[in-house]
């Protein structure tokens, strides 16, 4: 919390300075100065069971009460877009970068202070500081360990259009992480090769699902040989069912577009502008304590340098695709049009 003690007065001072410089008597009103009211409203597009304990720790440490609204990232994004600038939410915690991009595009986010934004390495956070990366999640292939050896699993998703995999691959085409990966494919391989791949997948009798978790369940049940999902779903299932019960196994795809690392992130929304409590909450999410919490409880990659990844996972650096910047993934709309064209959406 040391950073907060520095940042808050700094923000206060700069706010006062700016409003003073503007010379507008109405804006020098004392009520305009950022003031902590000890309360912040968070829209959390992540699972309550995973986030609530972290929020409780934050409140214990800072005394700031957090009013949390839990729902899916997609429902909450639709909600904030509908609420617009009247949204009561100060902070938005998102399951993926795409939702944050949509909120930023709609002009509903306020910039993260540069000192804070710089704590997360480039490539895992927004370039314009409209939001900040919190955790990393790798795309993987989950495979049926009873049917396939690790050596038989493709090392690139590009192989999945081969006849050998017809009817054996499942993925959720409407899922944001899947669409981010296809966007990465467009960026890395070019528009036409990406569309050829998507058309090839559509023609290869894929099993289309609604969610990553459901896709993994199919592999675990022996209904499906390969699933394109995010890595932590496997760890969540293993935590519930026990690792011995996991028929599905994971294959990481270093260097492949199908193995990119996407992020969860947080943004300060319109209502949270100049609210030190909102800033404190975002700051906490990327603090060492919270990053360690994510490592232990959700099996995601920490983004703050110096915090170790969950045991047994390949190093984050080995998965980073050098040709890709996460901000290149903002063309999701074109990806969706492409998926519509090939008949997957």
């Amino acid at each position, binding site marked *: 919390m040391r950073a907060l003690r520095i940042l808050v007065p700094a923000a206060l001072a700069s706010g006062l300075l700016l409003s003073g410089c503007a010379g507008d008597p109405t804006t020098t009103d004392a009520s305009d100065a950022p003031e902590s009211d000890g309360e912040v409203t968070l829209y959390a597009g992540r*699972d309550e069971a995973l986030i609530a304990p972290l929020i409780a720790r934050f409140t214990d440490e800072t005394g700031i009460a957090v009013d949390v609204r839990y729902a899916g990232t*997609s*429902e909450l994004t*639709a909600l904030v877009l*509908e*609420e617009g600038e009247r949204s*009561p939410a100060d902070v938005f915690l998102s399951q993926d970068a795409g939702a944050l991009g949509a909120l930023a595009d709609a002009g509903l986010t306020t910039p993260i202070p540069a000192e804070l934004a710089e704590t997360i390495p480039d490539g895992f956070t927004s370039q314009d500081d409209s939001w900040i990366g919190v955790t990393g999640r790798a795309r993987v292939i989950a495979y049926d360990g009873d049917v396939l050896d690790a050596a038989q699993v493709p090392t690139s998703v590009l192989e999945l259009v081969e006849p050998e995999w017809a009817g054996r691959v499942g993925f959720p085409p409407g899922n944001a992480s899947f669409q981010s990966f296809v966007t990465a494919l467009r960026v890395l391989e070019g528009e036409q090769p990406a569309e050829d791949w998507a058309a090839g997948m559509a023609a290869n009798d894929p*099993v289309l699902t609604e969610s990553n*978790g459901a896709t993994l369940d199919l592999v675990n049940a022996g209904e499906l040989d390969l699933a394109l999902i995010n890595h932590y779903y496997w760890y969540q299932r293993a935590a519930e069912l026990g690792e011995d019960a996991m028929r599905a196994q994971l294959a990481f795809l270093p260097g492949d577009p199908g193995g990119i690392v996407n992020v969860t992130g947080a943004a300060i929304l319109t209502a949270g502008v100049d609210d030190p409590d909102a800033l404190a909450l975002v700051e906490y999410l990327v603090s060492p304590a919270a990053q360690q919490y994510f490592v232990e409880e959700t099996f995601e990659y920490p983004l703050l340098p110096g915090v170790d990844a969950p045991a047994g996972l390949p190093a984050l650096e080995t998965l980073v695709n050098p040709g890709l910047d996460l901000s290149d993934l903002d063309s999701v709309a074109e990806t969706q049009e492409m998926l519509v*064209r090939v008949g997957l959406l």
Partner: protein
Amino acid sequence: MRSSRRPPRALWVAGLVACALASIPLVYLVARVAGAGAEQIAVALSRPRVPELIGTSLLLSASVTVATVAIGVPSAFLLARAALPARGLWAALAALPLAVPSYLAAYGWLAAVPGMQGFWAAWFVLTSVCLPYVTLPTAAALRLSTTGFDDLARTLGRGPVSAFFSGTWPQIAPAVSAGALLAFLYTLSDFGGVALFRLPVLTTAVHQAFGASFDRDYALILSGVLVLIALAVVLAEQLLRRRSPARAPHGPRAAPLRLGAALPAALVLLAVPSLLSAVVPTAILVGRALDAAALRSFDASEFAEALAGTLAFAAAGAVIAIVLALPIGALAARYRGRRVRIVETAAVIPLGLPGIVIGLSLVAFSLTVVPWWYQTALVLAFAYGVMFLPKAVGGVRSSIGLVPPALEDVSRTLGRTGLQTWWQVTARLARPGILAAALLVAVTAMKELPATLLLRPTGTDTLATELWSRTDVAAYGAAAPYALALLVVATIPAFLLSRHRDPEDV
């Protein structure tokens, strides 16, 4: 019992106000779709998958409707006319699926049979949860119907089935078609059941467009298609119902049918849908809950809060639905004419709208018109009131329809004012039916999810939202206590409904 007299002005005004409030989601949808522009509408509708989505939605809704009628009418016949041991038990079992949200039934089945998917899986689960919509009102209509015409037909040499269709069927047809309409619209607007079985239909495409792509225009245009389908089906049902003759007066009843050797088969028919929709999925989830790791995550105070929230929101929603339904139901029961039909139609449309659209429309409406109410319990209760108004209207209409207008005339001639007559005569006589309608709204509201997620006060939970937050990460075991509680809480009104005897109220 309808009359061609002109309705009193106050009733008209109240009916129109209720209708206007119920039309908020529709107005929002029309305004937003119109705002998207003709070109974008054309582009959206020309997507290659759109015809397929419409086709699957129609086919699923139609086949669920056919199945609920094919199973529901014989079940209702057994409940109303056959001599059954422990009759109350079977009636309660027939109502039990009302307490089961489609996503819960689908979820329980998937936990046991992960390979279940596609059209027939969705058809199976939706048919089993929609059955009471047909069985309950049909059984109630059968209890009130007479068998005199059947007997006459038998004496003229017809077989028992043929006699049933010429004698009893015309008397129960309005109840059957009203129930079939509810089953059709429920399936059309259902999301959870179809999504879990990975069947792409209009509602899943709406959710996908809202969710993954934040493409709200496309989502709303598809919702517009859903409303047009719902509108066409509602109008068709109204035509069907108008062709049916008025209910026959009380008359001779045949003695309860002795089933003899067919009794076991009959009991199986009555028990199987409830077993499939409620008992099996719940048993599977409870089995998972006994897992030690899952029980560790159970938090009693969180559970108690969710339970209290569920009951309070559902009760408030039921009150609002009934208040809105009273003038509309009274108009529909007592008066004829095009304007009455329009009011009645407007009140049924919300049933064809996906919950997420109703949720978003009320977000926009409450932020614009009553911002200080936004994210309060009142807005959520109002959403329930609007969403389930059609069910309330059906119950109010049929129970007021059973009050003979002559009684009201007598009351007026004895010096009571119109309002006094309404309160002291009509409302009192119709009360059991109206209470049953309120129960039905409450039980439906308890399991509602998409609008609840959007509109509930921040920081509050219901059993359904808690269940959702646990099923989302596929924590089957942790979800089980909430699933079980939802089932138990919703079973009580469902049980009370099974004892109720008025037709067309479900």
